[in-house]
């Protein structure tokens, strides 16, 4: 069965964040998801650099080692390829590792393990072996961290059949999606926006999961669809406000997972609005936005009133100087401007 097709055509609804009784940060949501899954399933363990007592440089894992011990929250050497490989082997033999790769830029060091091993083992073995591993990593610029700590490389892994790729944008989504990723029988790459760890949002205290492959309409609108991922969902939502004052009603679709991609929700939205702008923080050329724009062109061509536009990170290595760096990623202003152009309202 073709998994991606099956999921994209599913009618599964995402549970809504009902209990608005408490707000937690994105980082706490990740922490809670891991803790709950580790309590539920003794096969789940964490391995990575500075994950135990340090709780990662972002402090996302703080406290986990206290509850689960160093046997399940394992500080590794600075060996990204090695720990990814160990994750693959452990996953193949009955464990459910969560591999922590501190910066998304460092997934380049894990590429053989992810692309040639994890992604292909189930297929190459004729379906006999599987790799239920989650690789958590980060994305996002504007932290003044320069070219090797600021990239958003989700396109690299979204390109590879056999990998699932998750890009949550809210604490609620992060928790529900991470729990699903850990329970998934496939290798899943889970991207967290470094700038979002302190972002607060409603998360119900009750148990819930969010299925992989289901996009979420973050804002209903009628004139244009803004399709966004992770960090860019918030940029899109901020743009909505200024568009409103120009009389433009924008719909925001958060794809939540690029693999599987919920094509149906995206296409249905564009059929309704007739205009689309796709925004992702990865490099624009050959990026996630290109794939989604193509999906829209294929699925909603006769409904379009304007060309599908896309915005990604500028095609330059991310520069250090704030004056330079700030130009490289889409902003609410640049997104609003592009959306207005598409709606012929300058």
């Amino acid at each position, binding site marked *: 069965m*073709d998994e991606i097709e099956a999921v994209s055509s599913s009618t599964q609804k995402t549970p809504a964040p009902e209990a608005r009784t408490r707000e937690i940060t994105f980082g706490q949501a990740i922490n809670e998801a891991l803790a709950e899954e580790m309590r539920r399933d003794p096969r789940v363990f964490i391995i990575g650099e500075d994950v135990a007592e340090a709780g990662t440089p972002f402090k996302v894992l703080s406290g986990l080692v206290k509850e689960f011990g160093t046997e399940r929250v394992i500080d*590794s050497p600075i060996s990204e390829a090695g720990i990814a490989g160990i994750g693959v*082997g452990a996953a193949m*033999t009955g*464990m459910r590792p969560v591999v922590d790769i501190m910066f998304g830029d460092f997934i380049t060091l894990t590429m053989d393990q992810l692309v040639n091993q994890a992604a292909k083992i189930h297929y*190459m073995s004729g379906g006999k*072996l599987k790799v239920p591993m989650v690789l958590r990593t980060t994305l996002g610029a504007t932290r003044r961290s320069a070219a090797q700590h600021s990239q958003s490389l989700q396109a690299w892994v979204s390109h590879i059949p056999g990998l699932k790729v998750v890009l949550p944008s809210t604490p609620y989504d992060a928790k529900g999606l991470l729990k699903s990723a850990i329970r998934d029988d496939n290798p899943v790459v889970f991207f967290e926006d470094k700038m979002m760890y302190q972002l607060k949002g409603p998360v119900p205290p009750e148990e819930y999961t969010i299925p992989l492959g289901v996009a979420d309409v973050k804002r209903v609108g009628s004139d244009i669809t803004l399709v966004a991922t992770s960090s860019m969902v918030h940029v899109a939502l901020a743009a909505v406000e200024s568009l409103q004052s120009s009389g433009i009603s924008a719909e925001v679709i958060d794809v939540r997972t690029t693999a599987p991609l919920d094509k149906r929700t995206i296409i249905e939205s564009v059929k309704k609005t007739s205009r689309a702008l796709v925004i992702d923080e990865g490099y624009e050329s050959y990026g996630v936005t290109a794939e989604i724009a193509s999906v829209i062109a294929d699925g909603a061509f006769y409904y379009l009133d304007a060309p599908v536009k896309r915005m990604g990170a500028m095609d330059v290595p991310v520069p250090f100087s704030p004056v330079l760096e700030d130009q490289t990623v889409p902003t609410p202003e640049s997104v609003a401007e592009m959306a207005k152009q598409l709606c012929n309202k300058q």
Partner: protein
Amino acid sequence: MAKSKKSPSRPAKRASIHDERWLHFYRQMLKIRLFEEEVNQLYLSAKMPGLAHLYIGEEAVAVGVCEALRRDDYITSTHRGHGHCLAKGAVVDKMFAELLGKAAGYCRGKGGSMHIADQDTGNLGANAIVGGSAGMATGAAMSAKMRGTDQVAVCFFGDGALGQGVLYEAMNMASLWKLPVVYVCENNQYNEYTDFRETTAGEVTARAQAFGIHSESIDGQDVRIVHATALKLVERARRGDGPSFLQCNTYRFHGHHVGDVDRSYYRSKKEEEEWKKQRDPVKLLAEWLQKNKLADGKLFAQIENEIATEIKTAVQFALEAPYPEADEVKLHVYA
């Protein structure tokens, strides 16, 4: 390294198994030999898609090591992996079927020669990335330890993998965490078409020793030496004493792959002839069996006949077996 070129075989240390068991070793080694010769024929007669990397000449390593393992122990293998798969318990008909891309193959024809995996015999798969399974084998060992089993993982790789950094990342962690893994370096003297001495600085075993890993270098052509050493290292891992590194000095009698026929630019005919004549692992064991009156010409002929028949039947089965249905191409991308 010169050690492996010394001839002929020295008597192995007395191993703690019954002498009759060596006959089983002989059968296993001969099965690999005849299997690989048939693979070459399938290539030459254009019946096999793609290429294959023959294990002929290195049989003592796979058999000596895998006979020291339990069925539920793990191995990871290499692009030159047929020997490991068979030694760990794979059956020849499913092997041939996989090599021919048939649905009856170990991986339903999706893996082919370089990716045979068989979870029933603990084979986590052959791997076409040199050094690509170092992390995987180490992870399997870690998993065994975490799950509280006493399983052991063996990571087979060649001298070429000594150039891959991930091997050292994995060995470092295996040593830190005392993981039950044995790194078996099959040093067949050549990284593809280049003498390993041109690519490998320092002493090979010193690399593992630098991580505090127990390390040995042995004659990989004498299955009794390989087995005795492997038994020791596997049991060591099983009782929780951590990883070890075993360099088996060996030689591939054929080319890097079946199409590598003209090899004069990287090694001499004379060298090949010397190894084949003096260091053939199958012949060495046969001589020892004969000397110790455990087998004679008649028994050898009988064994060869039995295996040849098994191979012939298996090839026929594979040739006649159906290809996978076309729509299987999209099956198994995701679990």
